[in-house]
């Protein structure tokens, strides 16, 4: 018998509603048709959520120094450890590093414990890496961290400027909403500003492949263009803003005219002019921006340069308009609301504001409230490295993979006196280095609220039992708080208790003074909390149904109530390229993976899209540094190095390369790109410059390349390069080794185990070796070795692992790596949702039955679920058709 429950997706900041069906333990997911974020749609990652709820590699019991311990022992160890260090070195010797993956209630308790009772502001969140520049930009302009817009504004807009965001891959459902709007209203103009020609450009009327880091110049230029064209909306600017003159002067100074802008941003003049004309001539403009703006040493200035243009034209606080920062994580916004950034207090109040300090002290009934800003992520781990911080509690995040200069971070954690990690996963580089491991609940098990990019609070509900001894993060934190002697303040019985307190604080002596106010929810019963349907804050007695749009009354939360123009003097990225490090490293996400892959790597279909750490590089650069497509490159920066599979593509801007941020030590031997990323941060927001590090690249020249498949997980030996890829009923390992293998057959048996029936192919002179192992007429494992990387495609072998029996015909083909004439090979996975391969699509096109992506959809279903492969489908079509 089937039960369904409604929850929200744990991935990006779009915050899609998910409907979960449990049919006698068989879990399946689909989009929640009623959820206003996605109206039933899910992206490839969301659609695969059911693949990721298994308990393998889960942390299910507390551990102390690798040994299982009881909760009581572990919690005492945590509180005693923290107390000891605080007594000896003071509260600033301890720190919490938390996560946008946390629920608001967990977040609230963590922040309250650290700032309110331990008495230090040394709590920061991985959202620091994601949107802290956007926060700082909003606060400078509006006096509050208020995202003005709603997703609906995108659908009503006449011009959408997508700036520094591969929305198609990183916020797929928002992108799909834009695509739909564009289909319904072809006159809707889309401008994409991105050094890369990403999948998002698929719907762009204009793509500006901007020089990395020059965004502020482009928008300063826009501001002065608006001025020169007399398009400044003085009726808005005069009564509602301050500082326009200074902003215009600064803009004029740095970006006098189109030709200067074009030159600095390395764009064509007519493209810049066209963009400026679009913006000036279109009333309903939404500028949607993300990490391309935020992850920069001048990220805050960049966002203000955008906001300036919206203030100048009065395009804010009205339908279909506004500067819209879209966040990366499911609850980045919730973290901002509870104040889990080290420079915030709580409920959008300020640490350095005495009134706020007094207010929160009284509300929490504490006399120990932190009064000075704590350390921001990057500084925090520097202080751990140099020993000033003796204890770190990491909750639901993986800094050894995600922070810049990640090798130093890893050493810092290894050397830290007390490392506490609350995790649901066992295999994270951070958990592996913890003194005390605390098992937390995962998505589907924990229950609480999250806030998405449009200020919409949704319920993330549990539909799975608590596995092992895993617990809610708020419970773990409260238990430690009690043991540290703060019992009364942490006497929570449920997440509803916490939510009510959080809501009450947001309304406490607020009276419209503070943007974040959900006092309308402060009194809700447990039942109402359980049934809470998605609602946009502020939620007050007056706006009990929530608030779709901020600043409709033109009133802002600054001292004067007026929005602030910020005079922007563009700054180039902190580290310029030079002769030794001539290329710009840009990092980011790929379509089907999430963060450090601890969850998404469990799903075979998600691993099929991009299976390895790749470096995308322009053909000209590839030629210059003689990198061959599908070969392996070594990347070096001043801070670290890595190995990545080479993907040569015209979509990359010459001089700049792209590498995904996802791979961790458990999935790739040398795939952590953040080991290379410069530890440079924005002086205001503290956000790292993850999108601009000078690097050099060179071909990696191993003695041999290879791959192996196995039904069971293995530990490859003699392979300096390895990547582990979970498939459907197999694990695949991509391999390369620096020392030749003298006796490949016995090596293969060592890797794969001696048993079973062995097939072997050898061509000693060409150093080509292949062996396969068959048990009970099923392919158990197979290994290919060659002196070059031009090994057979992996797709057919992947399919063989799903076969119940290996026919004689297949058996003879195994070591060829491809079927003989007559056996179909569906080719590399394109549509992860329906598992449609490239060859299948090619055939459909060749047969003439599919001429458009829509045809392919009706024919093969490809692209009809999340739609994020549609750009690829179109590519295949255009490449396939004779020109």
């Amino acid at each position, binding site marked *: 018998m089937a039960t369904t429950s409604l929850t929200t997706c744990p991935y990006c900041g779009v915050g899609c509603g998910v409907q979960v069906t449990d049919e006698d333990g068989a879990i399946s997911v689909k989009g929640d048709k009623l959820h206003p974020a996605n109206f039933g749609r899910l992206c490839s990652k969301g659609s695969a959520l059911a693949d990721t709820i298994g308990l393998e590699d889960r942390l299910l019991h507390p551990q102390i120094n690798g040994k299982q311990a009881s909760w009581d022992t572990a919690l005492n160890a945590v509180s005693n450890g923290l107390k000891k260090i605080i007594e000896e070195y003071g509260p600033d010797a301890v720190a919490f590093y938390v996560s946008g993956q946390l629920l608001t209630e967990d977040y609230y308790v963590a922040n309250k414990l650290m700032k309110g009772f331990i008495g230090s502001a040394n709590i920061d969140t991985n959202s620091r890496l994601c949107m802290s520049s956007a926060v700082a930009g909003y606060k400078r302009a509006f006096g509050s961290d208020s995202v003005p817009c709603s997703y609906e504004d995108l659908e009503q807009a006449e011009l959408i400027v997508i700036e520094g965001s591969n929305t198609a891959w990183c916020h797929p459902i928002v992108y799909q909403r834009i695509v739909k709007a564009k289909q319904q209203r072809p006159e809707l103009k889309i401008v994409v500003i991105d050094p890369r020609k990403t999948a998002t450009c698929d719907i762009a009327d204009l793509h500006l492949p901007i020089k990395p880091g020059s965004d502020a110049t482009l928008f300063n230029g826009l501001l002065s263009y608006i001025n020169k064209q007399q398009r400044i909306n003085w009726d808005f600017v005069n009564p509602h803003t301050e500082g326009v003159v200074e902003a215009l002067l600064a803009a004029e100074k740095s970006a006098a005219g189109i030709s200067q802008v074009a030159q600095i941003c390395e764009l064509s003049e007519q493209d810049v002019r066209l963009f400026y004309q679009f913006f000036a001539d279109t009333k309903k403009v939404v500028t949607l921006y993300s990490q391309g703006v935020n992850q920069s040493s001048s990220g805050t200035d960049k966002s203000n340069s955008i906001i300036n243009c919206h203030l100048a034209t009065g395009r804010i606080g009205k339908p279909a308009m506004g500067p819209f920062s879209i966040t990366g994580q499911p609850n980045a916004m919730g973290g901002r609301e509870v104040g889990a950034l080290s420079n915030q207090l709580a409920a959008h109040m300020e640490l350095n504001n005495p009134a706020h300090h007094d207010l929160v002290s009284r509300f929490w009934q504490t006399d120990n409230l932190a009064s000075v800003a704590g350390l921001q992520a990057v500084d925090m781990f520097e202080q751990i490295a140099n020993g000033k911080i003796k204890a770190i509690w990491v909750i639901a995040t993986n800094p050894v993979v995600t922070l810049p200069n990640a090798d130093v971070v890893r050493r810092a954690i290894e050397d830290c006196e007390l490392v506490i990690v609350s995790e649901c996963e066992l295999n994270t580089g951070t958990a592996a280095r913890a003194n005390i491991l605390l098992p937390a609940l995962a998505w589907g098990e924990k229950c609480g609220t999250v806030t998405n990019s449009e200020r919409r609070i949704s319920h993330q509900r549990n539909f799975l039992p608590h596995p092992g001894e895993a617990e809610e993060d708020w419970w773990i934190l409260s238990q430690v708080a009690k043991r540290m002697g703060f019992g009364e303040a942490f006497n929570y019985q449920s997440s509803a208790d916490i939510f009510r307190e959080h809501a009450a604080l947001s309304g406490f002596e607020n009276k419209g003074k503070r943007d974040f106010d959900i006092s309308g929810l402060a009194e809700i019963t447990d039942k109402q909390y359980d049934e809470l349907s998605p609602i946009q804050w502020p939620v007050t007695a007056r706006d009990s149904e929530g608030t779709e749009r901020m600043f409709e009354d033109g009133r802002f939360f600054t001292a004067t109530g007026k929005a602030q123009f910020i005079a922007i003097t563009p700054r180039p990225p902190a580290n310029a390229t030079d002769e030794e490090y001539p290329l710009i490293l840009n990092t980011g996400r790929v379509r089907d993976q999430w963060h450090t892959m601890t969850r998404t790597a469990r799903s075979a279909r998600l691993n099929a899209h991009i299976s390895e750490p790749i470096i995308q590089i322009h053909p000209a650069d590839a030629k210059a540094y003689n990198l061959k497509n599908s070969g392996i490159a070594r990347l070096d920066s001043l801070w670290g190095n890595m190995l990545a599979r080479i993907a040569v593509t015209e979509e990359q801007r010459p001089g700049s390369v792209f590498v995904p941020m996802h791979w961790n030590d458990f999935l790739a031997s040398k795939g952590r790109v953040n080991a290379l990323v410069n530890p440079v941060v924005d002086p205001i927001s503290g956000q790292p410059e993850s999108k601009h590090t000078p690097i050099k690249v060179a071909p990696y020249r191993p003695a041999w390349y290879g791959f192996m498949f196995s039904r069971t997980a293995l530990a490859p030996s003699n392979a300096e390069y390895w990547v582990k890829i979970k498939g459907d009923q197999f694990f695949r390992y991509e391999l390369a080794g620096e020392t030749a293998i003298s006796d490949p057959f016995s090596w293969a048996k060592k890797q794969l185990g001696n048993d079973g*029936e*062995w*097939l*072997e*192919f*050898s*061509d*000693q*002179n*060409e150093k*080509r070796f292949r062996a396969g192992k*068959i048990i009970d007429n099923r392919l158990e494992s197979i290994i290919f070795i060659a002196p070059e990387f031009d090994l057979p495609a992996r797709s057919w072998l992947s399919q063989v692992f799903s076969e119940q029996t290996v026919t*004689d015909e297949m*058996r*003879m*083909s195994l*070591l*060829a790596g*491809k079927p*003989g*004439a*007559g056996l179909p090979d569906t080719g590399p996975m394109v549509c992860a949702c329906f598992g449609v391969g490239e060859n299948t699509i*090619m055939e459909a096109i060749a047969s003439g039955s599919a001429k458009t992506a829509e045809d392919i959809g009706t024919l093969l279903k490809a692209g009809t679920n999340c739609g994020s492969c549609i750009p690829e489908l179109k590519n295949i079509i255009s490449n396939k058709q004779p020109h």
Partner: protein
Amino acid sequence: MKEKLVLIGNGMAGMRTVDELLKLSPDKFDITVFGAEPHGNYNRIMLSPVLAGDKQLNEIIINDLQWYRDNKITLYTGKTITKIDRVNQQVLSDDGTAADYDRLIIATGSLPVMLDIPGKELEGVISFRDINDVNVMIETAKTHKNAIVIGGGLLGLEAANGLMIQGMNVSVVHRNNTLMSQQLDQEAADLMRAELEEKGMHFLMNHHTEALLGDKRVKKVRFKDGSEVDADLVIMAIGVRPNIALAQASGIQCDRGILVDDTLQTFTPTIYAVGECVQHRKKTFGLVAPLFEQAKVCANHLVDMGIASYVSSVTSTKLKVTGINLFSAGNFIGDEMTQSLVFKDPARHIYKKLVIQDNKIVGIVLYGETGDGLWYFSLLTEEQDISKMRENIIFGQQHIEIPEEHA
């Protein structure tokens, strides 16, 4: 008045030559054929299937007596030529039959090599050469139990297999460790031996026969190491040698075989020789394919066309033992000049080896999976450059991409 053509030897090579002659110029010659065996002409290669019970004798007859009559060929069966009078261009048989010739073809074939050891004359010690041998084996199998086959070559194994099927307990004696060393490398030979052992065949590898024991009929075989085995029937299959006694006696130039030039002509211009009795450019022959080639060329010259010229070529072998598939050709062992592509699936008794030199196939051994043998063989004989196919060629023709598959 027609020219007289006499053929000595009613076997496959000789009669194929006659066939070719009849095709080219049916009325040129007045043909007389002498055969030592008392039958029409039959397919000697098919003796194994007959022994194995897969074929009946009548099924392997190529030309029955009626055919000789229809083609106005005088056939003397059961008559052995004892003298060639080159001066008077006349042949004489053991029973005094004489025949004049203008042209003579010697096709006396080969004789099985018999070990010159004590007891070789005992009853039940035979070779595997003709219908009579097969009949003896089949009869013996009805009344006796133990058969010893000396020689683990192609012929020996076919004999052993046949005798096993006839119900005898068969052991194959082989002097070294590699069966069919003319066709197989060690690896393939071992696989085959394993499979034959599964079928119930016994092997005495690295055994050297010293004597055959018994008073009237053979009873035992003794080896140099002193060991003995019971034997009611001993088949000697250690090879053949060209049957040149007659030619030698008649003063025709011989070496190991009757020496012939590229037109199959002997040193005596009126006399030609074809088949296993000849030696052409230092080579003698044991397989049927080159014999048929020779027949064509020889006939061509006998009818004075004089255009064809015989070039001995690489030959491929298959073994006629049901359930055993092997294909072998060329330099299948390889040497310091060659490289090897090897595929093994021992559990399925499959072994494939291609010997490559200068990017061309020069040798082939296929065991268990011979489907691509002829394709490889054509690549070998056509000396095709296989460097572009090298990665997948061992997996067979169906894995060689047709260019458009690259698209």
